[in-house]
């Protein structure tokens, strides 16, 4: 529950940064904060009370794999949100890199990272 609330607050803070801040770099930081908040939210939704990572290692040492699976179901968290977040982190890194490259290019073109100096980009 704490995880969920933290994720929501991070999302809101990130959206505030995206909408209010003038500097492009700060807006990109806002995007990464939203990113982190969404990750926390997804992980919080997948959490099962008292669960551990969905990796069956010490739960059973015999070779009876199907039995291990049946036993593990009662004490692991949902693997699907974990898998989503796992890939989303790397994708978020690449997308942040793309945004920063665009910011670098804008800065080289006009010498400024302030969004007010790029009026011609407005729709």
């Amino acid at each position: 529950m704490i995880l969920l609330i933290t994720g929501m607050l991070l999302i809101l803070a990130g959206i505030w940064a995206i909408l209010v801040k003038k500097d492009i770099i700060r807006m990109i930081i806002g995007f990464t904060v939203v990113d982190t908040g969404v990750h926390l939210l997804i992980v919080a939704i997948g959490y099962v009370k008292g669960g551990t990572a969905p990796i069956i290692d010490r739960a059973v040492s015999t070779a009876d794999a199907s039995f291990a699976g049946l036993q593990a179901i009662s004490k692991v968290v949902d693997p699907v949100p974990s898998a989503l977040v796992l890939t989303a982190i790397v994708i978020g890194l690449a997308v942040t890199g793309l945004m920063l490259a665009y910011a670098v290019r804008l800065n080289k073109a006009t010498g400024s990272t302030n969004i007010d100096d790029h009026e011609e980009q407005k729709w």
Partner: protein
Amino acid sequence: MIKYLLVFAAILGMGWILWQLGVEFQTAQELNPLASEYVRGSTSDLNMPNAVTAVVVSYRGLDTLGEVTVLFLATAGIGFLLKRKKRSAGLEIDDADGAANVPVCDESALAGLEFDATGTTDPQNNLSNSLSSLSNSVVKNETLSSSAVKTRTEGSEILKTGSNLLVPMIVVLGIYIFTHGHLSPGGGFQGGVVIASGILMLIMAEVRFHLSHLLLHISESLSGLAYVAMGLAGLILLGVHHFLDPRYLLAGKFLALFSAGAVPVIYSLIGIKVGSELASVLASIQHEGEDL
């Protein structure tokens, strides 16, 4: 003022959406049927302990293929943006050189003419004067343009020695992480990022370190191609509904390195692909795509 009101309204609306999500939310007491099916299937069907890897590589393999494509597109976009920017900047420098050259030449020629007009010195001296001023201006221009292209400072001794010690270990750790993705926490994405962080350290420590773009492109393309080929092999060997199904290779012994069918192979390919893509991002940021 109206802008801040709109921002406030937007945040309030988003907060309302999240509130709707949170107010009914209760931490689950047990797994939902889909997740328990995945956890059971990862051990009984695919013979691997890591259910997250089972979801990433096999059950939601198509999603992962899509995400790798997104990663590729983002990398290509970064390379494109930085490369175009550098070329236009180079043209600007050339233009500035030309613009600076012309008036300086005129000035020296004018000075020569003035000397001629005064007629107090012989013409040869005039010529050498104007030539020397011309060469001076050229030298000045050269220093100007070379200072425009930033030269990186050498990495410190600690960083160099540390990178010599650590980079091989980091790369080995990355390879370990993505080859053991089906057994332990980790996998292709994490291992690839670890390898790219090692390459980042190398770039920071060595000024003259150049990543071969050709090598990166080849490893990236080949691993991506092989990933799709592994998926298609499942389609061909197991049947129509088995795209990216890893069970056409032997399941092996539970908890062994070579087990779980094609999962270690696929995850290693993802690891190589992610590592080389992030390394090529670093490389294009390093020399901002000047010459490939």
